[in-house]
C-alpha cells in the first residue's frame, strides 16, 4: 500500500534521535517520581512514531491497528492485575 516517502522517514528519524537525546539528558536530572514517567512517555512516543511511520500503520487498514494494539492491551491486563496483588500485599 501507499507508504510515506523518504522525507517523512528522515523527519521521523531526526525526531527519534532528538528524543533519544532528551531522554538521556533528562536522566541526569532528578525529577523525582516524574523521571520515570517522563522517560517512559518519551519511549512510548518514540514507539508510536516507529509504528505509525516506519511500520506504515498509519496507512493501513484499521484492523491491523487493532491487532497491533492487542499485544499492548493484553500486556496492560497482565500488568494491571499483577500489580493489583503486589501493591496491596
Amino acid at each position: 500500500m501507499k507508504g510515506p516517502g523518504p522525507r517523512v522517514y528522515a523527519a521521523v528519524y531526526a525526531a527519534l534521535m532528538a528524543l533519544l537525546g532528551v531522554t538521556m539528558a533528562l536522566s541526569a536530572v532528578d525529577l523525582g517520581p516524574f523521571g520515570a514517567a517522563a522517560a517512559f512517555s518519551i519511549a512510548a512516543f518514540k514507539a508510536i512514531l516507529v509504528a505509525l511511520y516506519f511500520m506504515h500503520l498509519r496507512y493501513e487498514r484499521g484492523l491491523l491497528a487493532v491487532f497491533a494494539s492487542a499485544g499492548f492491551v493484553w500486556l496492560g491486563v497482565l500488568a494491571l492485575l499483577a500489580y493489583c496483588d503486589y501493591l496491596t500485599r
Partner: protein
Amino acid sequence: MAEPTATSYLNAAYTARSWLLTLDHKRIALLYMVSITFFFFVGGAAAVLLRLELLSPQADLVVAETYNRLFTIHGVIMVFFFLIPAIPAVLGNFLVPLMIGAPDLAFPKLNLASWYIFMLGGSLCLVALLFGGVDTGWTFYTPFSSLYSNSNVMLTALGVFVAGFSSILTGLNFIVTIHTLRAPGMHWFRMPLFLWAIYATSLIMVLGTPVLATVLVLVALERGLGIGIFDPRLGGDPLLFQHLFWFYSHPAVYIMILPAMGVVSETITCFSRRRIFGYSFIAFASLAIALIGFLVWGHHMFVSGQSMYAGMVFSFLSFLVAVPSAIKVFNWTATLHKGRIRLSTPMLYALGFIGLFTLGGLTGVMLATLGLDVHMHDTYFVIAHFHYIMVGGAVMGYLGGVHFWWPKISGRLYSEWWGRLSALIIFIGFNLTFFPQFLLGYLGMPRRYHVYPPEFQVFNVFSTAGASILGVGYLLPLAYLLWSLRYGPRAEGNPWLASGLEWKTPCPPPVHNFDATPVVRHGAYAYGPDGELRDA
C-alpha cells in the same frame, strides 16, 4: 476397498511423502488426529497407573518418585499434547476452510510447519519421559522446578515451549483465514458457531501462549544457567512464576472448552433439526469468555500468599466469566424445544457434554468462592472439577465432533449401535470415576498424594473401578472407527442432512474442497419448520 468414483483428498496420492509433506489442511488435520490419539493413550496409560496405585492407601504399586512422574506426565501430555490441540488442530484444521468456503487455510506451509513443531515438542517430552521423566506437576511451580527437582525439567519445559509455538501458529493461521478467506456472502453473523468458537480460541492461543513461552524460558535460565529470576535467595518472588504461568494457563482452559462448545452448537442443531436458539448470544459469549478469561487467573492462587484484595478481585471476575457459559448452556437447551430430536451418537455426546460441563462449571464456581476455596484448593475437589470439564466436557465434545464429521473425514459410516453403546459406557464410567472425587476432595484428600489415610479408600476404589470402565469406553471408538475405515458403508453426500458448507462437498471432499467458490445466501443452521434442509 472398492475404488471411489471421484478423487478425494484421501486417494489423491498414497505415498508417505504425499502425507508427510502435504499442504492440504485436511491431510494435516489427519496427521494431528493420529498424533493426538497417540498422546491421549500415553496420557491415559499414565492415568491407569495412577488409579491403580490409588486403589490402596499404601504405596504398593509404585514408589513416590514414580507416582510423581506419572501425574506430571499425565497432566503435561493431556493438556499440552492432547486437549489443547485436539479440537482446534484436528477438527478446526479440517473444517475451518470447508465451513467458510475456502480452498485451504491462509498459510498452508505454516500449517504443516505447526504440525512438525508440535511433533518436535511432543518428541522432546517423550524423550524426557524415557530418560527418567519429570516430577514437577504440570504446573512447574518454582522454586521446586527451577532449583530443587532432580528430573528432566529442562527437556520437558523445552518440549512444552516448542509445542507452544505450534499453538501460536495454528491460532494465527485461523485468525487470518477467518478474516480474509470467507466466501462471498459469508458474513460474520452467518458463520457457524463452531467458527466463532475457533476464532475466540485462536485469540487466546495467540495472546496467551507467548507468556507461557517466556515463563518457561525463565525457569530454564534459572535452572540451567543460574540466572535466577524467581530464586527467593536473591529476593525473587515465589508468586511471580504463578502469576505468569496462570496468565496463560487459565485462558488455556478455555482453549480446551471453547472449541468443544463450538462442536456442540453444530451437532445440537443438526440433531434437533432446528436453528440455534439465540445465535448472537452464543457467538458473543464465546468472545466474552475468551476476553474475560484473561482476567481471572488469580483464582488459582487464593491461598498462595497473594494479597487478600487481589484475591477478591480475581474471585469477582471469575464469577463474571461463569455468566457467558451459563448463557450458552441455556441457549443450547432451548434449542431442543420443539425440535425433531434424534439421539444419534454425536447427539448423545452433545447432551453428555452439556450436562457434565454444567456440573463441572458450577463446581468451578464453588472453587471461585473465596472462603470455600481455602478448604478445597489442591484437594480432589479440584481434580474432579476439571476432569468434569475437560474429560466430561471437552473430550466428549471432541468425540462427538469426530463422530459427527467422521463420514466427511473418512467417507465411511461407523456402526451406530456401537457408537451409542460406547457413548453410554463412557458416560457411566466417567461419572463413576470422578463423582466420588468431589466427595473425597471435600473430605480433605489432597491431590498429588500416592499414599493417603485409610478412610479415603472407599471412594478411591469407586474411582478406580470407574476409570477401568472409562478406559474400555475409550478403546471402543478406536476399534469401531478404524473398522469402519475398511468395512463401513460408504457415506453418501450428506448422511445427517446437516446444513453448512462443509456438507456441500462430497464425502470425503476433493483436494480443492469446492469446484467453484460457493456463494452464501443465508445464515448458519438452515433447517426449515419441518426440519428440512433449506440450503440443499
